[in-house]
């Protein structure tokens, strides 16, 4: 497992596109030490690493297709209603190039 320090956590937060206060990073570092301890203990449970990972509680395979019913999609105005920066019927963001 990657070693955890404040720089690693800051990099992870920035990759998630936000920043936190120094106090929050300190708190997070403490929480990581707790997580590592707890997961080392879980790793010692007999058979845990030989078990398959469980994504869903039980099989949810669906083998039928829905009816192909035509429906009216949302209008452009509706879709843009919640965006705060809109111009000429499109969401406006700063120039990329």
């Amino acid at each position, binding site marked *: *497992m990657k070693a955890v320090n404040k720089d690693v*956590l800051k990099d992870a937060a920035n*990759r998630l596109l936000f920043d936190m206060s120094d106090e929050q990073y300190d708190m997070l570092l403490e929480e990581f030490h707790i997580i590592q301890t707890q997961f080392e*203990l*879980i790793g010692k449970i007999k058979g845990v690493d030989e078990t398959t990972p*469980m994504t869903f509680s039980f099989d949810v395979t669906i083998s039928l297709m829905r009816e192909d019913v035509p429906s009216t999609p949302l209008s452009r105005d509706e879709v843009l209603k919640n965006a705060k*920066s809109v111009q000429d019927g499109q969401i406006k963001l700063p120039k990329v190039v």
Partner: protein
Amino acid sequence: MSYLDLSIREIHNALLLKKVTIVELVKEALERAKKDDNNAFECILEKEALEKAIELSKKEIPNENYFYGIPYVAKDNFSTKGVETTGSSNVLSGYVPLFDATVIKYLNDAGAILIAKTTLDELAMGGTGTSGHKGKTFNPYDESHTHMIGGSSCGSAAAVSAAIVPFALGSDTGDSVRKPASNSALVGMKPTWGLISRFGLFPFAPSMDHVAYFTRNVSDSALLLNLLSKHDDNDETNSYKKRDDYFGDLKGDVKGKKIAVVKEIRNSITDEEMNKKYNDSLEFLKNAGAIVEEVSINKDLLTSIFPTYFIISCAEATSNNANLDGVKFGPNYGGKTYQEVMYNARTKGFSGLIKRRFVIGSYSLMSENQHDLFLRAQKARHLIVDAFNEVFKTYDAIYLLAAPSPASKFDEASDRLNNDYLIADNYLAYGNFGGFPSITIPLGFKNGLPYGGNITSKPFDEKDVFDLALKLESFTKLSDVSCLNYKEKEAK
């Protein structure tokens, strides 16, 4: 006495007999909501609720539709068309959904009247009822406001236990309905995963997210499941299994039912007064013909429930909330690049707690950490579910105290991760791991604060859960209890 203090069926009968009108009922619910001092509401929908009450009053009340004209509230993580829905997070301030969540639609179609949206822990990611953008939500049973009601469905629990409405929608990913229900003397039901459509519910950790709800008695809980559990094509995880008639089949007969008591969980609860009440309830079930036996589950597995839940939920949440970026919805604070726009929106929009959880989730998903964290958590989940499924091979249900104590004080519990994870404080998440139907019912009061019992069964066996709960309700005599009448009920 107010009609709002009664069960859904009793209110329905009063409406049919014209003892009260829909408008009077809704007006009184709104008055009670406006007097709320527990911070239960994100918004009160006075105008919309009254308009609907007037519209419904023009038609005959259908005999068989128990929900016609009944006021209710919904947690603010259910999409409501035309009504601001924030998930109690600043990152979604001003967001107005363009559609109704399926369960909101079902209730609306049945004639139920939404009178308010309720507070929650920010984006449902907490268990204390303190982390939403409107601050702490208080427990109506504690006038001093020193004890929490718990979360994340804190506002919905507060509204029902204060008898503002007879039922409320919530969501349950770890224990977010069943734990607050224990703290506020409510019936909190989380049915089998996939039984109720989640279309329009803000996702937190979809492999464990459930629509769940609060009522003040078991029969109302079964009645509501009949309405909410209709199949919905909009949710691809919604089950195709034929639904039972949960209310019609409700008998409360436990004769010959095999009930398991998990020794390690039971032993982790040390409160003598609560244990006595619990033991008395077991005796009552035995006398009613149930077979009660102790079973054992590996303590290390039970201890791993909370960290396993923590890693899986954080990992799923960081991915599911990646769309909250201030571009399509939510406040936009500008920036020189599109990344900066998103960075500013997310930095200002999320609280510290949520950001820490996202970092933990993201870190556990990194390729170099997956084996030791995320995959190990998924493997532990498998072992935990297998252990409980093994119990359900022999037993119809597991019955235990829902929590080790009545509601904690605000300064005694927090959402910060710590090493003191008592099994009994976090074990309910096994119901989410396995998708098991699970109900919390009020069991008693200690120093004026409620505590509950929890009944859990195998997937799609809601019938056993409801029957046992109904039987226990005849033991506790706490049907329709609220903070307004509990002293009278407790005295009985």
